[in-house]
């Protein structure tokens, strides 16, 4: 099986039905996407496939239809993506465990809709659970990131 993750092609020998999440984490050692529920209820495993935000716990390895981007491919500590920079500026994270998924969800939203309304932000981000309750800062950071991306 062939999988391209963060621009790197990998040849893999795994079951077709192994969820993409576990291929990333345990076969490729890419641990930014997190396991939280395994049933697409928490969003901690969110990655992009061809730019679309998906729950990697629900995508079988054999069904991956395009290039995969994880949070590690979005930006790095020394080269932050605008969404990550906004997350740092607002100090969104508490435990931080859900934030890889939150950031990937927000990045996909803003790529599709550069000026989301409050209702659109709420709708796009409500599939990502945060047990620490960082939601007010997530809303604020999405707006800051949107403004930064619009200004280029």
């Amino acid at each position, binding site marked *: 099986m062939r999988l391209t993750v963060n621009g790197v092609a990998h040849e893999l020998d795994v079951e077709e039905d192994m969820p993409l999440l576990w291929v990333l984490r345990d076969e490729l050692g890419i641990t930014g996407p997190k396991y939280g529920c395994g049933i697409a209820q928490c969003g901690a495993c969110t990655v992009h496939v061809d730019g679309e935000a998906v729950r990697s716990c629900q995508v079988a390895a054999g069904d991956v239809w395009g290039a995969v981007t994880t949070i590690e491919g979005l930006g790095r500590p020394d080269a932050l993506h605008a969404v990550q920079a906004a997350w740092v500026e607002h100090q969104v994270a508490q435990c931080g465990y*859900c934030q890889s998924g939150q950031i990937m969800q927000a990045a996909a939203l803003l790529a599709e809709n550069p000026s989301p309304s409050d209702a659109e932000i709420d709708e796009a981000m*409500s599939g990502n659970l945060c047990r620490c309750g960082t939601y007010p800062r997530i809303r604020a950071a999405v707006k800051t990131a949107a403004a930064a991306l619009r200004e280029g």
Partner: protein
Amino acid sequence: MSRIGRMARRGFLIGSAAIGGGVVFGYWRYRQPLPNPLLDGLAEGEAALTPFVKIGAEGVTLITPRAEMGQGATSVQAYLLAEELDVDPLKVRLDPGQPSPAYYNSAVLAEGLPFAATDTGWLAEQARALTDVPARLLGMQITGGSSTVPDMFDRLRHAGAVARETLKEAAAQETGIARDRLGTDDGAVVLPDGKRLPYTALAPRAATLEPVTEVSLRPESAWRYIGKRVQRTDIVAKSTGTERYGIDLALDGMLFASVRANPGLGGGVNGYDASAAEAMRGVQKVVPITSGVGVIADNTWRAFQAVNAIEIDWAAPAYPASSGEMREALKAAMTAGNRDSRFKDEGDVENALFEGEAIEAEYRVPYLAHAPLEPMNATVLVTDTRADIWTGTQIPRFVQKHAARLTGLGEKQVHVHVLPMGGSFGRRLEDVHVMQAVELAMAVKGRPVKMTWTREEDMTHDFPRPAQIARARGTVRNGKVEALDLSVVSQSVTASWMGRMMVAPPGPDITIVAGAWDQPFAIPHYRVTGYRAPEMVPVSSWRSVGASGNGFFHDCFLDELIHAAGADPLAERLRLCSDPLSRKVLEAVAEMSGWSGPRISETRARGVAFCLSFGVPMAEVVEVSRTPGGIRVDKVYAACELGRIVDPDNFEAQVSGGIIFGLGHAMNCELTYAGHAPEQVNFDSYQGMRLSQAPEIEVRGLENGERIRGIGEPGVPPAAPALANAIFALTGQRIRELPLNRHVSFA
């Protein structure tokens, strides 16, 4: 009866433990300096100037022994050390250190005392001081009870100052310039001519010196970090997917595992058939463990699949099987024989209830799961001579002791490497999952094993916040609250947890009534009684512990009485409030919310609630509105008093996060039981709060008190009652049971 006599009758934990410690160890032992654990295994040229600061050629390492679970403990500890040591917390290495008695928590036990936080009398202060003795003798290294900042505020600044002055002494000896003429800045001693001697270069000489312990702490006017907005030390890692939690650990040769234990907690295994699992791809070994079966494989998902394929015949545990039976057992326990405490008994409650027209109500809260987003996990490597454990934990010393017992190794042979936690909320005050991983690793000695629970295993095997029932009675007279009598029945969190930690159980359990008996109100006839229910499903501390249920009972019933008296909810709480610091908190939240009574309009209303927990008076006003989709929580105002705000940004995050935690569970969550196990085992049926329900939140912290307080938990207790009181103001419906969505719909 005198206060001393009452204290003796209460037979509370600390007094008895302190006396026990005195008999066994002698007071002299308490006075002995604790050894510096960093001195074991120092490399050539490295200096460990205190248990909290290590300096070698490669740089400065700050030891931050209170564990990071999202509350910002690592960051605040680093900044407190840096305030005196003059290093940049973002540039130095941070390490939680190995478990050690040197890192005992001197503040956490004080919360268990039967003295209200507002009681600053001689006896209360003596008892608080005494809690240092058992904490130190037991080497209780615990993260919890909102105690990190109160425990560490002076201690870490002192450690930073000792390290700084010792480094300056080393520089003085090298240069011949007197120590008091030297300065420090960003990791270097600065000579009068501006020349800089890096700490790393001074370490070899400093290591040969007796640490300089006669130091004075810098005055507030010189602070660079305390009270100012700083960057959390982990914020970049947590925004880039590069923070390494326990579940992310990778070691050479590591195997992956999962377990299935009896869904009835503590029940046994009659037998199992693992033949299908053993034939599955990647499965290396099936291992029977305490109360269950584990699978060791080459990939976590394969371990999950294999565990699911094992057929297991469970033996039922001893506790009641269903929620209905548990509730009946709770109700039946509210009898004189089960009376556990009556720490509040003022005026003549019986007479007031006899003479007045008594208002009566029954309140209930359900079992709740902690459900931190990172499921329980641990990685363990066992050999014949040592064990290494990597995990997120609030109790590293207990992990060390329990693993030593299980493996037959000595405690010093057990090394616990504490990793950042993806949430905890009290969950990782337990270590059953860690011991399961130890059992698996013992079956494949020499290979590290990372054991991860499925979410379903995690929810099924949580030790929940106990369900509680309260019976409340009260009277009003001439527009005022006259009497309040609250009886609470609950399992004992303290007895349940201490049983698992193998520590002697205390007398009365303060957590059964915490958040109710200790509230600063001068109600003429006022009584709070705790009843201890038998142990059922094992229970544990859940963010804000006893106050999470009692705050709801106490404040909502007070709101009922105030309504019956025809008084304004905020004005009457203020009139009754006997603590000046708490009054200021109520006044602040009134001003922030523009309080003008509970009704805002036909479709909007507000409720206020107050709870003093962990020494922090906290008042919250919740505004709600009626929408076509149901009741919407629009806005929350919160004001609290905590003596000193160390990190304003994290303070705001902890309070607003606590409010969302409190509201989300109050609105949407409960664990119900069938067949001894919870019926809610994943986030489809136990969601907490999602972003679409989150209100706007405005927080204000006051700094009028003399004592510094922690803020991880106090935001939680007033949230549920403030919302229930707001719903009453909006709809006239008084909801006396959580979760609220049993009775109303939320937008």
